[in-house]
């Protein structure tokens, strides 16, 4: 009997607790409702949610270099990105996080920028391919492809010529990346055979379009695309399983000394993105730097 009484009391206490937390829950939702009202005004006293890419990512490397977040200390370059920054290794999680969080800031490749988020102007320049090309928007990085120095695959050579030709660079421009200058029309030799291209997932979408276009000029060749990452792309090219490797970063010295020859095929802008309900439309590079180095913790420390 005592056990039953104990359980009855326990359940009564449990219900009471549930009731209280229920009330607490509604309190919380009341508060979030009021903050929902201020969200339309966008309360700048809130903490900034800083989202960054992982160490070693090509996007992050270019971002910290261009905004001066990388500092020289004792002859060594140190990444000063705040340790409070949330880290993700995918563009889609970056976009979802920024699209959901009113106070978030992040950065993505210009080519993968969607309309779920807002790209801010940097030092007064809009993040567009034209502005990157004219040099007013300074946040950009090269897309590299790499081959072995003694590449003997005719299809791969021909495909590379195509990428670096007028036709190939037109595909790059169509996909919102920035094409190379002074290119000549394509003079293909139409070799038949097979080539494997693989590597960085940042370069891969535009490479897919390039392969499609190349098939239009040379139906004899078969080109296989494997999407992995920059490092796998380089190591697989060194050991011969890819004919052409893709990297969204500069090649490392060990990779160069292993006999890889890099070629820049395009330039990609990096867009700094914020939530759509954010009132921030423009940031200076110093402001971006102070956010990412952790000097500014709330939005009102950055903007009025």
């Amino acid at each position, binding site marked *: 009997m005592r056990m039953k009484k104990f359980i009855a009391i326990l359940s009564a206490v449990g219900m009471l607790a549930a009731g209280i937390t229920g009330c607490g829950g509604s309190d919380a939702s009341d508060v979030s409702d009021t903050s929902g009202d201020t969200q339309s005004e966008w309360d700048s006293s*809130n*903490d900034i949610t800083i989202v960054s890419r*992982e160490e*070693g990512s090509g996007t992050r490397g270019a971002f910290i270099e261009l905004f001066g977040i990388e500092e020289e200390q004792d002859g*060594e370059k*140190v990444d000063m990105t705040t*340790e409070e920054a949330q*880290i993700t290794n995918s563009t889609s999680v970056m976009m979802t996080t920024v699209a959901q969080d009113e106070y978030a800031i992040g950065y993505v490749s210009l080519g993968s920028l969607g309309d779920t988020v807002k790209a801010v102007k940097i030092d007064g320049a809009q993040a567009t391919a034209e502005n990157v090309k004219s040099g007013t928007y300074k946040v950009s990085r090269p897309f590299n492809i790499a081959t072995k120095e003694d590449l003997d695959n005719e299809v791969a050579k021909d495909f590379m010529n195509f990428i670096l030709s007028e036709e190939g660079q037109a595909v790059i421009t169509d996909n919102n990346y920035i094409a190379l200058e002074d290119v000549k029309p394509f003079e293909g030799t139409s070799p038949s055979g097979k080539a494997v291209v693989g590597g960085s997932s940042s370069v891969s979408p535009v490479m897919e379009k390039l392969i499609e276009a190349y098939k239009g000029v040379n139906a004899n060749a078969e080109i296989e695309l494997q999407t992995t990452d*920059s490092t796998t792309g380089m190591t697989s090219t060194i050991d011969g399983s890819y004919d052409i490797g893709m990297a969204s970063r500069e090649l490392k010295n060990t990779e160069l000394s292993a006999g890889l020859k890099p070629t820049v095929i395009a330039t990609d802008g990096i867009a700094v993105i914020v939530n759509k309900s954010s009132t921030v439309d423009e940031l200076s590079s110093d402001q971006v730097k102070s956010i990412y180095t952790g000097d500014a913790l709330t939005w009102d420390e950055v903007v009025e």
Partner: protein
Amino acid sequence: MKSKTWNEKFMQGVFFTAACTSVLAVALICIFLFANGIPAMKEIGFIKFITGQRWKPGNDIYGILPMIVGSLYVTAGAVIVGVPIGILTSVFMAMYCPKKIYKPLKAAIELLAGIPSVVYGFFGLVVLVPRVRELGRALKMIGLARSSGNGNSILTASLLLGIMILPTIVGVTESAIRAVPAQYYEGALALGATHERSIFKVIIPAAKSGVVAGVVLGIGRAIGETMAVIMVAGNQARMPAGIMKGVRTLTANIVIEMGYAADLHREALIATGVVLFVFILLINFSVALIKRRGEREQ
């Protein structure tokens, strides 16, 4: 007659090869991990690697203490969330459940076990993270917390992992409770104990080793979970700074940086895998120990 014995011998060989495959796989994984990880640990310095609080691969600083502590915190959180629910669920299923509810309940728990972890992760990212973020901002507004965090936190990861380890705990615990001889329960009733008292004072203590094994298996699942945790934990490579703040686990550290790592950085990530592997070994070892002790008691 002769051909039959040959047949039997041949098939025995086939079965033996099949059995060897899994052993061989484990052995190869061990060799790969240690052969690649140990040199990196030596190069970085074992103590520096395990107790270092800073992880800056760009400057060749490799300290994985934040990740070790992060993994432990998140796992502990998952245990706090998952174990009470799991044990009470299995008690309900084994001792209270009407036949009508049992089948759908069992099916639901089995389904929970079958959901891919990336789906859990997406659920966490879209459903749990905004809720926790609102909670954090509300706490900051009423002055209970100094910093609100952004929803990607130890708390979120713990809640999500707590749900994810439920099927493991419920499955093992339920069968352990069912394995207790019926005489124990009947004897307790005959001595005048109520249904509840017989369950909590007689059956559960008798099934103790099975329950503990279930919890430890759950811990193993939580510490090894990767995809779901990456999507909700924030992944900051620094010492955990609070329950509403982000954290990076050992598994997340490997997956996030593997794509771009080269040279020593890559080896350091494999060495992280070695540390994780040692954790899992310890967990499996303790499960075996608990089971053996349980058998001796019976």
